[in-house]
């Protein structure tokens, strides 16, 4: 949804009257997953060797 029309003021701090004051602990930081090690590119599929012409 886009915002209201022109000549409007939108303020983030409009959150009503205070109800209570709390003291809360710091969250544990979520560990950032390590990127997967890059695998060496697999070699291209080998073409089948041409059959050797049998000698006459």
């Amino acid at each position: 949804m886009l915002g209201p029309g022109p000549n409007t003021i939108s303020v983030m701090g409009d959150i009503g009257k205070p109800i209570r004051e709390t003291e809360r602990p710091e969250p544990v930081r979520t560990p950032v997953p390590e990127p997967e090690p890059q695998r060496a590119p697999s070699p291209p599929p080998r073409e089948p060797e041409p059959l050797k012409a049998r000698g006459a």
Partner: protein
Amino acid sequence: MSAEPVAQPLVGFRRWGCKRGGLYSGIFVSGRFVPNPALGMVAPRTAQLPWPTDHDRAAKCFALRGHEAPYRDCNCGWAAYYSLPEEPELPAPECVWGAVVAWGTIVECETGFRARFARPLALLDRKHPDDIREQGRRATIAAEAYAIPLLELDELIAYAGWHGEVRDVRTPP
């Protein structure tokens, strides 16, 4: 009012003005983002700083007779709503919504809170159609800068719930 100890951090939802990957506090006036007008009035030459990407910063009060933020009878502190609107409005092309986790002293109000510390958790994957300057990639660029995920609305709410208490209070439209 003495602060009541609570065992969990508090989770909320808010919007920022987003520029070049930085998330800025401020207001939206007539479809344009105005960063932190309180700081602009007190110290007009001070550079506006985005929310830090690599450390936590305590909220400050920019009132002339300042106090430690958040203060009950002021509007200072990192603010957020308890819940995300079903259709989060985008009042300007710079607007980006996301989830935050908050801790330390928190003034809990009717529909949201103001905290001494807060950190972005994830951003909402939504873009303003008139975002010509950053081609609708603001949230994506900011998510990369803050090393946080870019999520759809339902996923954002669920993800936030993993990081602290989510209060079930309706946010005003």
